[in-house]
Every structure is written in C-alpha cells, then in structure tokens.
C-alpha cells in the first residue's frame, strides 16, 4: 500500500525472518490444505457436543413450550435475552475491526479482521437463534417482518423496538456476511489455485472467478471501502437498537437514555474480549505468532481498557442519575441491584467489567498472553452478567411489590446457553478448517512495509537514526515471537 518507508518508531505488524509472499500463503493455508491436527479434532468434538446440547435444549423447548425455562409472570425475559444481547454484542468487534479500522487505515487490522468478521457472523447467528427460540410460538417467527399476507393484511407495529431489532439484526448480518465474503474472494482464489480435483471445482465456484487482475484488485479495494462505509453506522446502530428494547420501556432500570452509547461501548468491549479469547489460542495452535503479534494483542487490550472504562463510567452515571432523578422506583431499582437478592450478579459485573480491565494500565499485564487470555474470559463473563443484571434485576422487582419474584434458571436455560457456545465454536472451527483464518492478501501488504524483516533490512541499510532504532529495539522486547538474535540484528551493518 505504501511505497515510502514506514517510520521505524512504529512497531512491526509481522515478525519472522526470510518471509516471502509464498511463505505467507503456505503458513496461512496450512490448516486449510492439510488434515486437521489433534487439537482441532479435540476442540471440534467438544464443540459439536455443545452444539448437540443446544439442539436438545432448543428441541425440548419447542416440544413442551417456554415453560421449560425458569421464567415466570414477573420475569418474562432472562437467560434468553441475556444470551441474545451477549452474542450480538460480541459480534460488534468484527465490524468495528473490518470497517472502522479500515476507514482509519489502521493496518494492524489486516491480520485479525478475517477471524473477527467470522466471529461476528457466527455470533450473530447464535444471537438470531434466541430471537426465534424465545418466542412462545416460534413457527410464526416470520410475522416479525412486514410481509404482504392474507391474514387480513396484518402489519407489524413500527413502534415496537422488536421490529427495529429484526431489521437491525438482519441488516447487520447481511452486510457483515457480504463484507466478509468479499474480503475472502482473493484468498479463496489462492486456495483454488493451489488445489486439485473436486476441491478446485468447489473453491472455483466460491471464488466467483477471481482472476487477480489489476482491475479486480482495484474494484476489490473500492468495494471494501464502500462496504466499510455502510458497515460503520451499523456498528453504532445495531446495539443502539438492541438497547432500545429496554430504553423505550417503562420499567425502572430499563428506561434509561444512556443505554445506546453505553450498550455500544459494552458491545465493542465484549467483542474485543472475544476476539482476544479466540486469537490467543488461534495464533498458538495454528502457528500464527508471526502474523498476530504482541502489537495486536496489546492494541486490543488497550481498546478493552478504554471501552471497559467507558462502561464503568456508564455504570456510575446510571447510579448517579438514579439518585439524581428523585424517582423512587428508579432509585429502588438501582439500590436493589447493589444490595438486593441479585447483588452478587451486580458485583460480579462490576468486578469483571470495571475493575479487571483497569489492570491493563500495566504494560506487563497487557503484554502477558496468559493474563490477557484470562482477563478476556473474565470480561466476557462480566458482560454476560451485565445483561443479566439489566434484564433480570430490573424485571424481578418493578413497580408493584406484590408481583416481585425471583428467577431461577432450569437445565434448559443453561443448556441453551452452553449449547450456543458449542454452536459458535463448531462454526468457528469449521471456518478455520475450510477458509483462511487470516486475510492472506491483506497481510501480504504488510510484508514490505511493516514487517520486522523489512525494518531490519532498512535499519541495516542505515535508513534511521540510531536513537530511533534504539527505541524500536526496546519496543521489541515484549514480542514473544522475536528472538534476542533478531533484536541484535537491528544494527547498522
């Protein structure tokens, strides 16, 4: 992309020695072109078991009715919508990475956008299952769309946030899918070009006849930009609309104007945490350490820290506004969150979402792979609790104390949630098996501008002043994929 030399002050986005374009392709297509290894099989079998649990739990619900869940007359949504919002939120990181970072020309996205987008799509699929599964009569789910019909031309209620939701989620899913698939075209073509027989035929069809001409690339770039432009507002709109399911209601704890920005920040927060969870394993198991470097990990940790802080401010603002409102119902809703029967959930949320990301102020922590991974899991747990707190603790004690009730999940509630994680990983592992987990073409762009080997060459040629090189050398110390020898090679010859 860039013909000029990138500043030496910038950390490398790719490490390793003697990497060629061919080797990038080889490295990334290794899992796609070979039989899966043991780790993949173990993961896949576990994930499929989870997915089976999902099938059983959802099947049982469809067979007997929503009564299979722990809901009651007071708490009409609980794990179902908690899980739905959780998955939709997770989906956000993919779009943010692929669209917003593209527009801002953040090249470090090139290594992670593919998996993040795949994650988005699978997360939205998981979320969509709840939209259908939580309905009392799921076989009528299509009524949510304003379809011309013969039921006396019944129409949908455009005042209802659930209708907005249906549009938001379906638009989001469609655009994300198209964006993801467009980005995949050159890489599928690479797989096609290296394949034989039936495999070649299939990938030929999938590659939409990509021929790698300059014109193709030019159009590819333009389409990417256009789709990025379309997707960017979606990053904000989807979770804004999801938040309106709550914000437009009259229930204290739901009826909150801060919800749209708060939900979006929370979504990015949880999305990046999930990307982190996945990529830290991915880079290890698939040997992608040179492509997904410590820089990426640290950058994402920083985003987690910032969005986590935004979420924390939102929590505190909610408390302040509840007090400042003078509305007794509002005040009680929040007092009940803090000290009511579900206080443990509130404090779990506070600890996981507000306190734990603050640890990332410490460089040692944000560059430690095991701690980053653990914290990413903690953040995901915290974000699940956030939705649980918002939904269940607001509903279980609202206006009339006579109806106050507790919610206790059943095995079906748990089964559907755990099962949806299984479903997600099943899809994700299949994706890794059949499609390149890193955008080959986009990573290749980095090879001659932002890779360590390129920068080493430039340093050796004496392109940069020594103090800057010294800074660069120091910045490499955190990299687990850079050896001492490679750092020492960063000297003028």
């Amino acid at each position, binding site marked *: 992309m860039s013909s000029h030399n990138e500043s030496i002050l910038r950390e490398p986005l790719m490490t390793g020695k003697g990497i060629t374009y061919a080797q990038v392709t080889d490295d990334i297509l290794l899992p796609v072109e070979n039989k899966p290894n043991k780790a993949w099989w173990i993961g896949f079998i576990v994930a499929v078991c989870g997915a089976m649990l999902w099938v059983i739990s959802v099947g049982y619900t469809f067979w007997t009715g929503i009564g299979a869940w722990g809901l009651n007359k007071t708490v009409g949504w609980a794990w179902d919508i908690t899980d739905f919002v959780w998955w939709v939120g997770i989906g956000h990181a993919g779009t943010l990475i692929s669209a917003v970072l593209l527009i801002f020309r953040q090249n470090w996205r090139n290594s992670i956008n593919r998996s993040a987008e795949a994650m988005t799509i699978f997360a939205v699929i998981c979320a969509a299952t709840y939209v259908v599964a*939580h309905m009392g*009569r799921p076989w009528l789910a299509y009524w949510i769309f304003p379809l011309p019909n013969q039921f006396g031309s019944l129409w*949908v*209620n455009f005042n209802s946030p659930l209708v907005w939701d249906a549009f938001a989620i379906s638009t989001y899913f469609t655009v994300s899918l198209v964006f993801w698939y467009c980005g995949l075209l050159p890489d599928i073509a690479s797989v096609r070009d290296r394949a034989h027989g039936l495999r070649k035929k299939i990938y030929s069809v999938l590659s939409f006849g990509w021929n790698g001409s300059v014109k193709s690339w030019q159009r590819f770039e333009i389409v990417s930009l256009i789709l990025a432009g379309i997707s960017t507002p979606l990053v904000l709109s989807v979770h804004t609309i999801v938040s309106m399911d709550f914000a437009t209601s009259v229930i204290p704890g739901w009826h909150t104007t801060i919800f749209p920005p708060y939900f979006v920040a929370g979504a990015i927060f949880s999305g990046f945490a999930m990307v982190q969870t996945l990529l830290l394993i991915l880079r290890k198991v698939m040997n992608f350490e040179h492509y997904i470097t410590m820089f990426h990990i640290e950058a994402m940790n920083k985003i987690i820290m910032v969005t986590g802080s935004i979420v924390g401010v939102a929590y505190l603002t909610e408390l302040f506004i509840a007090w400042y409102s003078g509305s007794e119902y509002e005040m009680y809703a929040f007092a009940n969150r803090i000290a009511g029967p579900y206080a443990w959930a509130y404090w779990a949320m506070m600890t996981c979402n507000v306190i734990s990301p603050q640890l990332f102020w410490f460089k040692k922590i944000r560059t430690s792979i095991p701690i980053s991974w653990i914290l990413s899991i903690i953040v995901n747990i915290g974000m699940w609790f956030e939705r649980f707190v918002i939904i269940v603790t607001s509903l279980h004690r609202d206006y009339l104390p006579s*109806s106050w009730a507790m919610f206790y999940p059943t095995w079906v509630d748990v089964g559907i949630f755990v099962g949806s994680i299984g479903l997600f990983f099943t899809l994700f592992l299949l994706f890794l098996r059949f499609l390149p987990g890193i955008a080959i073409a986009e990573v290749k762009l980095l090879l001659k501008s932002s890779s360590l080997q390129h920068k080493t060459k430039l340093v050796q040629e004496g392109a940069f002043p020594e103090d800057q090189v010294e800074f660069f050398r120091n910045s490499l110390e955190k990299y687990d994929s850079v050896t001492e020898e490679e750092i020492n090679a960063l000297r003028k010859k």
Partner: protein
Amino acid sequence: MDSNKKYWKGLEELNQTPAFVENNKGEFAEPIPVEDVLNEAGLSTRTPRRDFLKALGFGLGAVTLAACNRTPVHKAVPYVIKPEEITPGIPNYYASSFNGQSILVRTREGRPISVEANPNGVGLNQGTDANTVASVLDLYDMSKLQNPQIGGKDVEWSKLDATVIAALTKAAAAGKQITIVSNTVNSPSTLASIAKLSAKYPTANHIQVDAISYSGIVEANKNNFGKAVIPSYNFGNAQIVVSVAADFLGSWLAGEEHTQDYIKNRDYKSLKNGKMSRHIQFESGLSMTGSNADVRIAIKPSEEGAVLISLYNEITGQSVAGGTTNAKAQTAIKLAAKELVAAKGKSIVVAGSNDVNVQSLVNAINTQLGAYGTIIDLDNYSKQHQGSDAAFQQFLTAAKAGQVGVAFFLNSNPVYDYFKAEDVKAAIAKIDFTLSFADRAEETASTLNAIAPVPTYLESWGDASSKEGLYTVVQPTINPVFNTRQAEQSLLVWAGETTSIYDFVKQTWDATILAGTGKSWKDVLQVGYIYKGTNQGSSYSANVDVNAVSSAIVADAKKVAGEVELKLYESTVMRDGRYANNAYLQELPDPVSKVTWDNYAALNPKFAEQLGLGENGKVKVEANGYSLELPVVLQPGQAMGTVSVALGYGRTHVGKAGNNVGYNAYPFATLVNGTVQLAAKATVTKASGTYELAQTQTHHTIEGRNIIRETTFAKYLKDPNSESGRFSDTHKTYDLWNKFEQPGHKWVMAIDLNACTGCGSCIVACNVENNIPVVGRDEVRRRREMHWLRIDRYYTIEDNGTKYTKEKEIAHIDDFENVTVVHQPMLCQHCEHAPCETVCPVLATVHSSEGLNHMAYNRCFGTRYCANNCPYKVRRFNWFNYWNDSRFDNYLNNEFTQLVLNPDVTTRSRGVMEKCSMCIQRIQAGKLQAKMENRKLKDGDVKMACQAACSANAIIFGDANDPESEVSKALRNERVYYVLEEINVQPNIGYMTKVRNTFEA
C-alpha cells in the same frame, strides 16, 4: 325366470381343451413368483432398477392419494327438533339456590356454565362466595361415582334398593335404630322425605352434625332465651362492631351476607354521607375479617374469654373476675366499651368461640348493648348451622353399643372431619348396614357397605331454607349426568313411595310453603324463592348468670392456656373441606397468606425466629395427643406464642385435584362442655426438612410506595381528598401520541379499597367466566398462576407507633403483632397509553375505540415483551399447553370436564399472552341485547364477572361517557386515585383510598 344359461369366454372353454383346464386352475394367467420373492433368497436379491422405480412410483402415488383425503370434518349436528327455549349462542338463566342463597344459573346449549347471585333475592343478593361460583365445576368432576355401589362394586339401583330395604326391614324388626346422619338440613323437601322414611320405619331418627360446629351458640341461646337457634345478624345496622375471634366476613356463619351488610357502612356511598362504622377485632391468627378491622389486637386463644369478661365489665361497670391482663387489649377494650355503649342499639359484639359459656357472656353483652331486634334477629333466625355435637355423641355411643341397625350418611363425612375418626370407624363397624349418599367414595363412604350417589344441585330438584321464613328452590339445569339419584328420591323409594322427586318437591311446596301466599309453583320457579319472614326481629333480653359463666370461662381457659396455643380455623377458601376437589378453589390464594394448594402452620415471624425457623421451614405441632409436621408461614399479625392451622385440608378420598393436599387438622380438636373446641394447648418444635409453599405473592409490603393510598376517617371527614395524592392535580402531563376520540362507550372501572375484603370470589368468577386454566401447585411455586385478576395484599407493620412498609426496616422490628392490611384487586388497567401496546411487534395487543386494551390471541407469537413492560404485571403467559398436557391434569384434561368451559371465550394455546379482557364477551352480549331490543345500552346492562361475584360492591364497572352511570359517579369521588398515575400510562381503573376508622382519630 330361472336361467341356466352359461356364457363361455372362448372356444377353449367351450371345448374344455386340456391346456385351458390346466391354465384355469390358477388365478392369474402366469404364475406370480410371490413365494420366490418372499423367501429369504428372494428378499436378498438385488432389486432391479425398474422395480425400484415402480415401487417408488407406487409409493408416491399411494402417498399422494392418501394425502388427498380431506381433513375429517367434525359436524356439529343441529337440533332436528329444537327445544323451544334453547337458541344456540344465547344463554338461558334458571333460578335456583346453593347453600340457601338464591342464585341464577347460566346455561348454554343445555349445560350450566356459571352461577351468579339472584339480584332480587332476599339476604345475600349481590355477589356470592368463592365456593358458590366454583360449584359449577363440581358438576363436571370426573372423580364422582357414576353408579351406585355395594361393597365398592357398581350395582343396579334395583339391587341397591332391595339390599337397603332388606336392611331397613331387618333393623325395624329387631327394634334397632335407623339413623340418618347429616350435616345441617334446612330443606323442607329433604326433611319431608326423611319424615316419610320415619313414618315407614318408626325406629328411624335424624341427627345433624356439622364439621364446623356452632352448637355453642345454639346451646347458649337455648339457655338464655329459650330459643335453640342461631340468630341472623344484620351488620348493616351496626356502627360499632367488636369481634372476638369471629371471622364474620369469611367463614363464620353467613360470612358473605355479613360482608354485604357490613360494607354498606364503609363503602364510598357511606363515606360520601360522612358515615363509617368502626370495627375492632381481637384474634390470634390474622383472619380475613381481622385484616379488614380498623383496630386489631392480637390475643391468644385462651384470652378470648377474658377479653369478653373485661369488655362486659367496662360496658356494665361491674367487676366480674377473670378479666384480661393483656395491656394492649385492656386499652382497646376501654375505648371500645365507651363507643359500644355510646352507640347502643347500633353496636354489637360477636365471638367465634363454640363454647356455651363464652356465647352466653356475649349474649349478656349484646343485651346490654340493645343489639337484639336491631342487629341480632332471633325471629328470622338462621337455619344454616343446626348441627348438634351432643346428638352425634349420642349416636356414637348408641352405635358402639350395637343399638344402631342402619345408618345413612347424608352430606356427612365424619371419618374425615370428626376429631376422633377412630371412634367413628369403631361405631360404623358395629352398625349392621351403612350407606352414604356421597357423590364420591370419600373417606366415610368408602368404609361403608353401600353408596347411593347423589347428583349435584345443578342436576337436582330441591329447596332450602337458610333463614326462618325464607324458602329457596333448587331446580335442575341439566339431566343427571351419571347414574345417580337424589337422596330424597332414594329415601322415598325405601319408604315405599313411588312419587317422583319433582312431584314430591312440588307437593311439599304446595302443601306447606305456598299455602296462603297466593303464589304458584310456577311463580317460585321463576323468582326462585319465597320470603315469609318479618322485616325486623323483636327485642330479646338474655338471662345469664354472668358470674357463673365467667368463672366457667376462666376455668376452661386454663386448660387451653400455655406457652404455645393452637388455633384451628375454617379457611375462607376451603371451608370445612367438602369442596376440596375443586381445582378453582385449591388455586384460589388464601385472602391473607396468599398460599394455594396447602394448609400450613401460621407463626408470628418473631416467634418463628425464636424457634429457629425461616422461610420454607417446617414445624411439628403437637396438641391433644395428635401431631403434624406442617410447612410454616411467617404471618405478621399472628399473636406471639400461637399457631394457627386451617381445617379442610388433607382429604384422602376426594379426587384427583384434592387428594393429599395439605394435612388434616381436625384431629387436633377436642370436646369441651359437650361442644367441639378448636383451640388447644400445644407444643411447637422445629422439624427437619424444608417445604416451599405455593404462594402467589411473596413480597408483602408496599416499600413506602404510593400505590396504596390510605387515610383515616377523621382526616377524611376534614378533607375527602385526604391522602388521595392525585398526580394530575399538581402536574401537567404531555402526550406523545395522538388523542383518539372515544365517541361511543368508554369502559372504565372503579374499585373501592374500603369495600374490598379480599375474599377472592371475584378471582374464581373470573376463572370460570374466562376459562382460565388452573396450573397446579408446582407452577404456582414457579410464579406462573394464570389469574387475570388477583388481590394484592399488603401489610404495614406498626412498632412503637411507627409504621413500617420497607423490607429493610422491617428486618429490625421486634413486634410483628400490630399489623394493618390492605387488599387491592389488581387486573389489567386498560391504560389509554398502554405500554404493552407500543412494544408488541405484531400488533397483537391494541386499543379499542371504547378504551379497552384488546388481546388478539391468534396474532400473538409470544415475545412476552408486553408482560415485561406492564407496570402492573397483570399479563399472563401460557407457558405450556395447559388444556392438553398430562402434567397439568388437575381437572380439565378430559372431554367431560371441558364442558364447563364458557363457549363465548376461546381457550388459549401454548405460547400466547392473555389478560383481563374486561369480559369483552359480556360487553358484546349486552350491546347485542340492546340492539335487538332497539334501545341504547343502559348502565348496569353489562356486569363484569368479578363485579357480579362481589358481595361488597367493591368493583364498579360502566361507561365513563355516560355521566350518570354509577361508575362515572364513583370516579368523581374525591377518594379516587390511579395507581402509578405518574408514569402517565393513563389507566382506566380508578381506585378509592383506603379509609381506616382508627382510635387515634
């Protein structure tokens, strides 16, 4: 013409060629290789491609043809000859009576579907109790016997008759007693049929015994006035009511009639005139009546007598020994006595005790107060409770001595409800022939020789006389469903009479009741009753030796007094247990504790804490040599050191819904002074294990919220707006939505919190009217009861003069005896700005031009968003397919019981939301009726089911566009406020402030 022509198929046949003869042996021209195909080798051969395609083709064709079969059509067969009075879709009403109350039975296409009070009746005529409304379900109860039985085996009636007559003859010949044991019988026809039997068999006698005995009052009145009766009480004339442990609005005597009269001095109309009665209650457990009292003092059962002695002393200025030492009670008694005396002639004291001495003392007090002739009517006395404990004792003794040859049990189940079931069983074993007229093989009937099952009152001819001078008729609304026969008919047959029951009842009426009234039998069938009583009873003076009575009371109280005292009570819902198989009643929450499907030990929270008990705890209660392990209810208002247990539970032979629900507490009772007493010295210890009761409400206070607004009568008199705190008076509201005109009707409701006693008959009426499923104990535990209308009950705990309603403050309170209670009926508020309507994605719930919030079940796909967004939490979701799911088979999963469903209201499938429709079917029916009569709909043409069942007139429904309608007038009342008005959902149901006539005022 006989023909022997033979047609041949060809020359071969004609010639009978050998080849033809050979070929003709087989059915087919060529042999079919069936054997080859079906033997093993044939099956394992490869199917040729063509055969496969043929099979495929055939299969496809066959399936297609099968699929062409149209869905079977279930034809509704029209009447060939339509009965004149039945028009499909139009209900018929029949005047009848239940437990002596004149009612109207609504039938549709020949099946009774609901019961309402006869608005023209005498006595209770606006509303019914929950049992009456629910009674329609008993007709469709599958647990009833379908044939007469001898020794547990079905027999023909003729066989039964022969057996019974043989037994009767044998007993008569041996000179042994023939006893008919019944509960109170006030039906002239039943008594006449018993008389017929007695005439035929001179050794026959009839004794009456009630599960809940009022013998004490009868005996006391016999001693004091020479009249062995229970008087009628007209609480409408009472300005000051002091009740000592009498649940007179609930289960005591005629609770529903008392409610109707009592509320007339407390509802919005009375308050409008600046009048309100004062009600002071002394009791140990918090009864429904106590929850409505202005002042309530918690006392132990042993203190009841002492309280009355003190009260007597204060009223008369005497100093009879044995007064109470309870400081709180003393203060209240002083104030109460002053008021009672001041309001002489308009004040009354009632006591729930079944002790002769206590009731004599009460008679003495009421004589002093001049209550006889104004409030207490000994002339038009009640005939509802004539049971005599002494008579039953004599029967048991005689039976055990082998003097009884035959015993018939009519509406009497002593094996279950007599405190010494073993005695009853031993007595029965000594009787040569025993028979029950029970409709099912219940506890007693199943131990007897034979059962002659009776139909329900909805299938019977009969009558009742609940009060001297009042005669009500029972007329059938359907043919007997099972092979049953009325007890009266059986008695007639056994007495050798051939009269049919219809003729017999008619003859009885013509001969005795109608004589001299100028009315015909036909008139009675139309009107339903005849009243020959006087308007007002005359004055009486009790002749009581107060000192003797008091010392007896003190002596008896010592037997009960103890560290812990047990009080048994008749539950307002389950009563004495005879309706235990009625699923509607089992799921009707107790008015105070809100517990369904169980009885329990009610303990003061502080007392429970001392015993180491918390929520879901279990306790072992021991008294009179009997013990039970019961789940605990932490009951504010319960006197310290007392435990209350409801009777009427623990049936074992009543049917699918009622068997083994709760525990039988009757064995705790004992006999003192010849009457059954329901209080005893007890020990209470913590039992192991936990038990979760199915409660419909688990949070009991309003948390300081303004959803309940209450004031005192004194404040009300100064300012009728007192505490009504209407938001709209001080705030301007803004509309987000367009205002829609409501030019025709605008249906609204007014609910008077001062009138509602919390009894819950409206809930059952709503269930029956709207086909609301009963979901069972487990689902109620999961907080999934389906009631469209509920009654929220909130406590305010008073400690040291401060009132607490917040959970956190209550945690630090030491004294839970002082509690005030409010009952708030809560149902869909039909908000003009309904939050449910805006959030439904598919417009399944929308607003009508008449101000109603409609629910289109067919359009609902069950997101439950509406229920979440309902601030009143009145929407109910069909979690399962309650109509067809064996897990919820409490009563309805059979075609017969489903006939109870109201055909005007659809049953809801799984996965859809439902809620109060404002009985839209009744509104529609009212409009159509008005249209057919070519007139405008009048106020009062349409009554809600809940409204019709409310004897307190707490629910007023009507058209707000008609300024003269009752509801419009009610809603213009200063006390009206709207619940959660400040969130501007604009509810269409107005509530009127709760007014308490407290002493401090």
